[in-house]
């Protein structure tokens, strides 16, 4: 139990990268990227957790009761905003690529390689 969160975080990163590597549709790929990002949420929040500790909101219980680490939660809040912004930008790009090329499959969208001299 004491290493389960770290393994789940590594598992989510691995599954996300597997999804991105084998995806045949850009919108599916963007979904896998958000799974890859959720690994950082799990890692950070599990680091801040303490047994028998309450949430860092001293409204119901008096200040000074043992609480979990609020700094990590602030970091994950910023990270969720990062996730939202990257997903929105990627979806807009995917829309434009689809409008221009008519396909969303990375295999068919390979940028032309100007080789040979």
């Amino acid at each position, binding site marked *: *139990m004491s290493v*389960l*969160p770290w393994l*789940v975080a590594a*598992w*989510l990163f691995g*599954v*996300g990268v*597997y*999804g991105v590597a084998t*995806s*045949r*549709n850009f*919108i*599916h790929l*963007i*979904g*896998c990227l*958000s*799974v890859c990002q*959720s*690994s950082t*949420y*799990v890692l950070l*929040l*599990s680091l*801040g*957790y303490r*047994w028998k*500790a*309450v*949430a*860092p*909101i001293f409204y119901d219980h008096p200040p000074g009761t043992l*609480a*979990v680490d609020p700094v990590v*939660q602030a970091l*994950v*809040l910023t990270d*969720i*905003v990062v*996730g*939202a912004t990257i*997903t*929105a930008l990627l*979806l807009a790009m*995917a*829309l434009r690529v*689809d*409008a221009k090329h*008519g396909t*969303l499959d990375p295999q068919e969208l390979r940028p032309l390689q100007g080789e040979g001299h």
Partner: protein
Amino acid sequence: MSLILGLLLGLAALAGLGVVLSRDPRRQVMAMAANGLALTLLFFALQAPDVALSELTVGTAATPLLFLVTLAAVRMNRVRQRK
């Protein structure tokens, strides 16, 4: 308490796998909403209500909605291109 956390961590891992394995984007949107919900429950169990609310609003409501609208727009493009 450690049992619930263990179960929720397992649920989050499975939900992540579910999102990746559902190859069809329409079904993946539903899987993403479920993944957002699983993460929200996990964050509540980890005593992080702010982050859980944020994950609920962004991960379960806003992002899947953006995916749905993108899929609708893509489908409309395909219909127009076929004409």
